[in-house]
């Protein structure tokens, strides 16, 4: 029974992707269009394009910049967001300003960051990623802290929990579902900015490599780049979900019970 069920589930999960890939394979098999090379050719190009050297030279720097920028945004966003969320006056003071900065599409900050930090090195790119990721995390943290159950705050106060313990045991865990929601939005913005930041200034990186392929009309290679980028997006999303499922197990369990499932 369990093997049958497992096979069934695998078939359901893998069925459509296999069909789609097969369709792509067949439809593109005889393609002479320069933009849509046969899938077979794309796959053949893969190993020669994504060598170890390219991995170290392009993929690793991109991901490192993303990691640093994202981490900066998470730290600054949570610290600032908690402070603003706890202080109604500060929140009222900063709300319109934050609304404005959040609304600026992050890529337009590239020219401005380029003015300050230059854009040939990594600093400008990391700042771009950090600044773009900051707003969703910051604003969701503010909302999460603000939406804390008042009875929990009262409980913490009546047991005289110290400020530090209140922050770490009550405020941050209570706000964590919202913080994660913000961090998830920030992650997809971060990946976008990782690519975009490499399109400015001379440099190496995943995004730069793909555009390089496109400009030199190395179309099958360009396609492999698109696929690699897609895979990175998928892997990062899966990693994020794994962390979230671990950290928010209590929240998911509680929600499930509330919904009567």
């Amino acid at each position, binding site marked *: 029974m369990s093997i049958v069920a497992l096979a069934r589930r695998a078939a*359901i*999960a*893998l069925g*459509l*992707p296999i069909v789609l890939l097969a369709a792509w394979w067949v439809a593109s098999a005889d393609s002479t269009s320069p*933009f849509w090379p046969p899938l077979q050719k794309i796959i053949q190009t893969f190993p020669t394009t994504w060598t170890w050297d390219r991995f170290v030279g392009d993929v690793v720097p991109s991901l490192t910049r993303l990691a640093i920028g994202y981490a900066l945004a998470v730290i600054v966003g949570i610290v600032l967001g908690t402070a603003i969320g706890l*202080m*109604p*006056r500060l929140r*009222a*003071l*900063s*709300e*319109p*300003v934050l*609304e*404005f*900065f*959040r*609304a*600026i*599409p*992050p*890529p*337009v*900050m*590239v*020219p*401005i960051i*380029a*003015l*300050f930090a230059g854009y040939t090195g990594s600093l400008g790119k990391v700042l771009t990623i950090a600044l773009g990721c900051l707003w969703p995390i910051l604003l*969701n943290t503010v*909302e999460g802290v603000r939406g804390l159950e*008042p009875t929990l*705050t009262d409980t913490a106060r009546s047991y005289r929990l110290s400020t530090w313990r209140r922050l770490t045991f009550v405020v941050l865990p209570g706000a964590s579902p*919202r913080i994660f*929601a913000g961090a*998830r939005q920030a992650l*997809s*913005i971060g*990946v*976008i900015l990782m*690519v*975009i930041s490499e*399109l400015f200034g001379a440099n190496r990186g995943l*995004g730069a490599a*793909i*555009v390089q392929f*496109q400009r030199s009309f190395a*179309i099958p290679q*360009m396609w492999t*780049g*698109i696929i690699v*980028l*897609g895979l990175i*997006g*998928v892997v*990062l*999303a899966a990693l994020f979900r794994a962390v979230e499922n671990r950290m928010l197990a209590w929240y998911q369990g509680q929600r499930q019970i509330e919904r009567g499932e």
Partner: protein
Amino acid sequence: MSSSPATLAPAATRGTPRARRGRRRPDAWLGVLGVAIVLVGAETLSRTGIVNPAFLPPVSEMYAKLFQLLGEADFWQSLWLTVRGWAVGLGAAMALGILAGFVIGSLPWLRAVTRSTIEFLRPIPSVALIPLVVLMYGTKPASAFLLVLYAAFWQVLVQVLYGVADVDPVARDTARSYRFGPLRVARSVIYPTALPYIMTAFRLAAAVALILEITAELVIGVPGLGRDIGVAQSSGAVAETYALVIVVGLIGVAVNLLARVVERKALWWHPSVRSEAA
């Protein structure tokens, strides 16, 4: 700090709407003060030379430039192109996303079969498609349209799927026992349940669509405010760069406000104030 008035008062008078509104006024003034502090602060930093004015011109100059732009036809043309690109892409994404979401969501087998594919395609960053759309359409608006569509579509689809899944099974069974046709079920049972989710989808997708529209303009060179920012920056017109960024930011604020107004108007009857489900 003292949080007492905000957090403690509800225990006494269980926050009547009027009482809550009364408290907003000092908040609004504080907000204005906050904006003023930032503007004056930036102006001072620049005027005193603490920050190199070549990087951060005085705010007054940015606004002077902005008012000058308001008199130029080219600026309005760019603004129109950006807003049009955003609206068309968003509209298409909403239409496709809602349609696909209703169809996939109402057919359990289809939902099961497509689940893995959706989970896989959704996180693929839309910017991965930049080289492809450049090859296909160059700097034509179609390039931006495809990027906006791809990015916003997944936001809508996923929200609508949540919404359709949220439909009360009893309501669905009732509709079926009265032999409602599929269209009537969609209109009278699924749609009202999914509406709040559709509104959330609109809010999220509207923001994403603007980001991608501007990105396409800035990176690919599709005509619009994004391209103007790139041009201004590379020609060293720093004040104009800032002026345009401010404009784009204000458009973003307008988009967010619009989304919130639409959400509130459409959901005034709805008991739950939904938070992000995405």
